[in-house]
Every structure is written in structure tokens, then in C-alpha cells.
């Protein structure tokens, strides 16, 4: 049972840090999430502004045998560039190997869909993802985020955001977990980080750097 909880924790936090699955053409993005359950790092290269390839590795710090490596193809399906806003629709498909039971290595598939909209003051994101293995039942994750910027910073200034994240995770075994996390987001030029603690007491740290 404790092993199952560790797996759940790992999967929960492995899929929440993909804030920018595709960036500008020719860019490389390195991002990661760190929590008591998860060390997840990924690197994405955007061949086009609408297409990127990513390599992910995640591991549970509390049980080093629980790990997975996945290659993903990330697509920007549609972008709306408005006069004072931007809105995006992304899709993600991928596959790799995982040792989610801590014993046997298995083929793993990943699919996801994400929508976001933001202007300089407000931010909204909704995301749904599935992680599938051949023998185990699927994992489903839904995330909704809302954010507000206390001030509108200039291009080269430090930017700050207050974010509230709601997340629901379901496993095929019937286990459901919901959690809400208030977070602080800061970014300066090409470096971004977020830190927060959920109402269940789980501390989270995300970072993104692109160049």
C-alpha cells in the first residue's frame, strides 16, 4: 500500500510542471518539478513555434526504483493572438519506459490536452492528461489554474504572479485525490520559478529556463 501511495505521488507531480510544452522556434527549454514525492526534469527543443520534442525523466526521491523516462511530441494546435491577450491549445503524445511498480520495466504511453488564456493581469489554464501502461490501469489527471499579477511589469523587470491550482487525480484502481495549492510565481527574463504549499501540506517547487 505504501508503495502504491509513492507511485501515486510520483505520477501526480510528474505531469503538472509542463507549463510551456512548446516555445519559440529554435529554443531549448529546461524545466523541472521538485517535491517530497517527485524529482522530474525535462528538456524540450522547439523545431517550430508549433512543435517541440521533449525528453522527460522522473524519479521518486523516497524510492529510487520508482522511475520513468518518456519522449514526447508536443503540438501547438491553435493560437489566438489578440490585441491584449494570448490563448493556446496544446496536445501532447509520447511514449517510453517506466518502473511504476518498482520492479518491472514496462512500456508507457502519454497523451494530453491543454488550454490556456492570459493577458498581462490574469491567467487561466485547464489541462487533462492520461498516462497508460499495458498491464496497469490508466492514470488520469485534471488541472485548473487561475492567476493574477499584482502589477504589470515591463519587459526586463521582475514579474510576480499569485496562482491557485486545483488538481484531481484518478487511478484505474478507483483511487481519487484532489488537492489545491496556492503558489507564488516569479520570472525575470528567461528564468521562471514557482513555489507553494498545498492545503494538504505538500511543498512544491517548479522552474523553467529557456534559451
Amino acid at each position: 500500500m505504501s508503495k502504491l501511495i509513492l507511485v501515486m505521488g510520483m505520477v501526480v507531480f510528474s505531469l503538472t510542471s509542463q507549463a510551456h510544452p512548446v516555445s519559440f522556434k529554435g529554443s531549448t527549454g529546461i524545466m523541472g518539478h521538485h517535491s517530497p514525492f517527485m524529482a522530474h526534469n525535462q528538456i524540450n527543443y522547439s523545431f517550430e513555434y508549433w512543435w517541440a520534442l521533449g525528453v522527460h525523466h522522473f524519479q521518486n526521491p523516497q524510492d529510487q526504483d520508482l522511475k520513468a523516462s518518456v519522449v514526447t511530441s508536443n503540438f501547438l494546435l491553435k493560437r489566438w493572438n489578440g490585441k491584449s491577450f494570448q490563448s493556446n491549445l496544446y496536445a501532447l503524445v509520447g511514449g517510453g519506459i517506466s518502473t511504476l511498480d518498482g520492479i518491472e520495466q514496462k512500456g508507457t504511453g502519454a497523451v494530453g490536452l491543454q488550454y490556456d488564456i492570459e493577458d498581462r493581469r490574469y491567467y487561466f489554464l485547464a489541462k487533462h492528461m492520461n498516462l497508460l501502461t499495458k498491464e496497469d490501469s490508466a492514470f488520469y489527471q485534471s488541472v485548473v489554474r487561475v492567476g493574477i499579477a499584482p502589477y504589470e511589469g515591463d519587459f526586463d523587470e521582475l514579474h510576480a504572479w499569485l496562482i491557485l491550482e486545483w488538481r484531481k487525480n484518478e487511478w484505474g484502481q478507483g483511487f481519487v485525490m484532489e488537492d489545491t495549492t496556492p503558489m507564488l510565481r516569479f520570472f525575470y527574463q528567461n528564468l521562471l520559478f514557482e513555489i507553494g504549499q498545498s492545503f494538504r501540506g505538500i511543498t512544491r517547487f517548479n522552474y523553467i529556463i529557456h534559451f
Partner: protein
Amino acid sequence: MKTLVLILFTFNINTSFVFAESQSSDHNHKRHEHKGHKHEGHDHKMEDKKAEFKEISKDKVVIKVQGMVCAFCAQGIKKNFNAKKEVKETKVDLDKMEVTILFKKGQQLSKKVMEETVTDAGFKFVGVK
């Protein structure tokens, strides 16, 4: 004999005049070479004037960009413009949704290249201000 000398003199004046004219106004480039460039198919004097005009009046361009609401995401615009050899510096103004491109001396980017650069960064090119 006198008539013959008169005819030859007249012919000489005409040919000299035509040759001189061809050197000054026609600017026949087949008769001479300039260092480092070819002259076929263009007016040399007009090109010089255009280049001079660009250097004086187009050392910077301001373009309007739509969708540029996030400074973190818009870093790509600055990076991709700065990577071009013609560009000296790029400034982004989120309030006005404008990008100012400062060129190196005598350098320029075409509208098409600027549009491609903005599009590759993920934004909509509205036009040159």
C-alpha cells in the same frame, strides 16, 4: 581638300561628344569596372542615393506585434532578432505591443524577414509603424 578636312573635323567633334555623353549620363558599365560589385541591371546613382537614404532614416524600425502579453514568452522575439547580423539591438515594449529594432550602420531587414521572425516567436506581425 578643304571640304574633306571640314567633313573629318565635323565627324571628330560628333564622335567625341557621343563618347563623352556615354561616360557621363549613360554610365555604360561595360566600359569600366568598380571594385567589389557588378552594375548590370541597375542605375548606379539611384542605388547610391537609396543606400544613403536608408543609412540616414532607417537605422531603426518599430513594428507592431499582437499577442505579446507575457514577458517570459516574448523573450524569443528579442533573442531571434538579436541573432541576425543586421541587428544591433532589440527593445520590447509590452505596454504598446511594439518591438524596436536598431540596425547596424547601413544594414536593414526586409518586411518579410521581420514578419517571419515575429511569427517564429509565436506572435502575430501587425505591421511596421
